[in-house]
């Protein structure tokens, strides 16, 4: 057993209102710079939809993630070691700016400077790349709320395996259905971006598992952009360096939640530590698709187990971090209740951001069934949900419905339990039967309810002490250190000549 700690996340999709506050918070703090205008380290997509960059989930096109091809080893799909030499000059599967969008602003000066004429002056859109007038063709969330469904929603890669009828159901008039998928870097346990970097510029921080790009070592070989199946490393076209979500580590180190978490209006985001067994990583990443969700859970360790605690201490994990792991909301959602699932785990990077799959809208697809509760199958509306289970399974279960149905059933049972408690339109007996069938107890249902609906800031974000100061003390005199370090680079991060 090799215990490591990982700052992990849960996004509760049932609560996301698609307001994009998170994206804007992130943009204002980190990517409001030349070369990064098009980057949205945090973005919110409408599902079904093609996302950002367009069709990022289509790995036939982008070749992201790992594959196992029979020889018992994991291979990076885009740039395995044999392909690194030809690919370094030109990456055949790398997205270009047109797969994201060309950022633009408006010619506001024209409002003041336009010569007198018979028309009101307008502020025309101009490209932020070349300053020319631009005919805006797409943006970072062009298909928000199903805008342009025939081009976008109907081309969602997750529709694979759905029947014609299920597809029609998703887009039937007056019964349209969609949900939001906020995305940041998953700070994976087996990050494909790190594995692919020819310069070794990307790394995972040992103490908290945050995945970063060393800006001084990045040489613009662009392998990570191709390799990350979630398309969460971005190429800065101006500085010639790749960039990615840093999980606001400067905020975490000072005990604050990351900007997107802090600002989340729907309070859908949870952050906490998970302890895991790093020795199992390779073995788990190679499991067959249908065993991956369980496999990843089997790596995550019980922070209350004395043996785990002893091993963690032996590995230098501090008491504070172990305590944080015991209080972790992520552990509850992922391990205890098993209602949060990793996105597209079939990419085999073992993402550490988990999603509670959305229930809404509760209304089933068949109109006559919606209000009847007397069906024998208490979960009929989940099985006939307007967002077909297969669609959610493609997103969160590597195509397998089992874990997704489990998560949805438990959520529904919690709702009905609370209805029996407070509204009273459901009798206690039915609610209890439902809890039983969903593998949940009344106590657990109460806990889920509390952490979902009544959670405070402190419940949602259990930030481990990072003890940077202790690490520094071990190496040198703190005052000396303070005089030696500062922010940024000597001479500034200038683009190469």
């Amino acid at each position: 057993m090799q215990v490591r700690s990982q700052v992990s996340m849960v996004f509760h999709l049932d609560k996301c209102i698609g307001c994009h506050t998170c994206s804007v918070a992130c943009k204002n703090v980190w990517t409001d710079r030349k070369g990064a205008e098009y980057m949205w380290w945090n973005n919110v997509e409408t599902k079904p939809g093609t996302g950002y960059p367009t069709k990022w989930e289509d790995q036939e096109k982008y070749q992201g993630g790992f594959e196992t091809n029979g020889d018992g080893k994991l291979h990076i799909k885009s740039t395995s070691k044999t392909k690194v030499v030809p690919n370094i000059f030109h990456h055949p599967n790398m997205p270009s700016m047109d797969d994201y969008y060309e950022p633009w602003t408006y010619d506001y000066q024209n409002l003041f400077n336009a010569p007198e004429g018979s028309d009101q002056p307008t502020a025309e859109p101009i490209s932020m790349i070349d300053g020319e007038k631009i005919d805006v063709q797409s943006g970072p969330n062009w298909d928000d709320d199903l805008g342009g469904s025939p081009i976008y929603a109907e081309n969602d890669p997750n529709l694979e395996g759905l029947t014609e009828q299920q597809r029609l159901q998703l887009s039937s008039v007056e019964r349209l259905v969609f949900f939001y998928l906020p995305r940041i870097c998953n700070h994976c346990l087996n990050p494909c971006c790190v594995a692919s970097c020819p310069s070794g510029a990307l790394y995972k921080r040992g103490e908290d598992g945050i995945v970063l790009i060393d800006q001084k070592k990045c040489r613009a070989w662009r392998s990570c952009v191709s390799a990350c199946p979630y398309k969460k490393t971005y190429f800065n076209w101006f500085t010639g360096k790749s960039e990615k979500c840093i999980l606001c580590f400067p905020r975490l180190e000072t005990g604050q939640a990351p900007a997107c978490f802090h600002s989340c209006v729907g309070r859908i985001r949870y952050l906490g530590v998970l302890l895991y067994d790093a020795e199992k990583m390779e073995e788990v990443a190679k499991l067959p698709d249908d065993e991956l969700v369980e496999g990843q859970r089997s790596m995550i360790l019980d922070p209350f187990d004395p043996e785990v605690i002893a091993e963690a201490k032996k590995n230098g994990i501090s008491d504070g971090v172990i305590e944080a792991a015991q209080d972790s909301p992520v552990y509850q959602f992922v391990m205890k209740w098993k209602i949060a699932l990793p996105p597209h785990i079939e990419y085999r990077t073992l993402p550490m951001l988990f999603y509670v799959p959305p229930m809404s809208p509760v209304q089933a697809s068949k109109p006559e069934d919606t209000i009847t509760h007397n069906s024998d199958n208490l979960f009929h509306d989940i099985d006939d949900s307007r967002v077909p289970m297969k669609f959610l399974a493609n997103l969160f279960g590597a195509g397998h419905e089992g874990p997704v149905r489990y998560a949805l059933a438990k959520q529904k049972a919690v709702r009905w339990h609370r209805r029996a408690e407070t509204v009273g339109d459901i009798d206690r007996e039915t609610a209890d039967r439902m809890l039983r069938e969903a593998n949940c107890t009344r106590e657990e249902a109460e806990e889920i309810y509390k952490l979902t609906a009544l959670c405070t800031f402190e419940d949602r974000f259990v930030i481990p002490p990072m003890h940077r100061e202790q690490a520094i003390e071990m190496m040198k005199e703190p005052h000396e250190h303070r005089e030696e370090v500062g922010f940024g680079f000597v001479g500034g991060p200038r683009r190469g000549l």
Partner: protein
Amino acid sequence: MNPHVLDQFLFIALPYVSLFTFLLMTIYRYRQQSFSFSSLSSQFLENKQHFWTVVPFHYGILAVTVGHLIAFLIPRSILAWNSHPLRLYVLEVSALACGLLTLIGLIGLMLRRGTTTRIRKVTSLNDWILFTMLLIQVVSGVGIALFHPWGSSWFASNLSPYLWSIFKLNPDISYVTAMPHLVKLHIVLAFLTIGFFPFTRLVHLLVIPNPYLWRKTQVVRWYGHPQK
């Protein structure tokens, strides 16, 4: 000017100035501005012509550069190889083919840089100077291959000793002064490019990745204490 003095300037003074500039400025830039070491890829901005220009250029220039290096480092083996006429032809024709590949790629690169608005935005004055120097260099190289054949042999027998004499700090320019003008141009421009090198995007050559093929798949960095 006295041709003798000119030769001394071009083939003794210039090489030393260039080599020292290269050495000092590269070290200085790496220490002060390591952030600026990047291939400054433009694939993200333009992904279609990119393949047809960057790839042929690089395969061509790499083959040609390696060829020059071999002839410089182990001239005797080149001469031994060329002792057989058929092998000499094969070598000469392949070198010319690589030169042409480089030329086509380079012209493509320049056209792409000049005609794509987005790419023009990330092209500096230094880039244009560099591209022009490279273009003249490649054209003169191809010209030499066409008009002064068997360069692989005379490079090994005449130029390699000259270059060695520079590195041995005992320059002997008798080998080069007798060379045709085209060859002289090629040599002078080569040194100019070396001197200009640290001020250009060419520094990406010095940071080509090497640990990749044998490092562990995942990279973990620990703060303070070493990996457990």
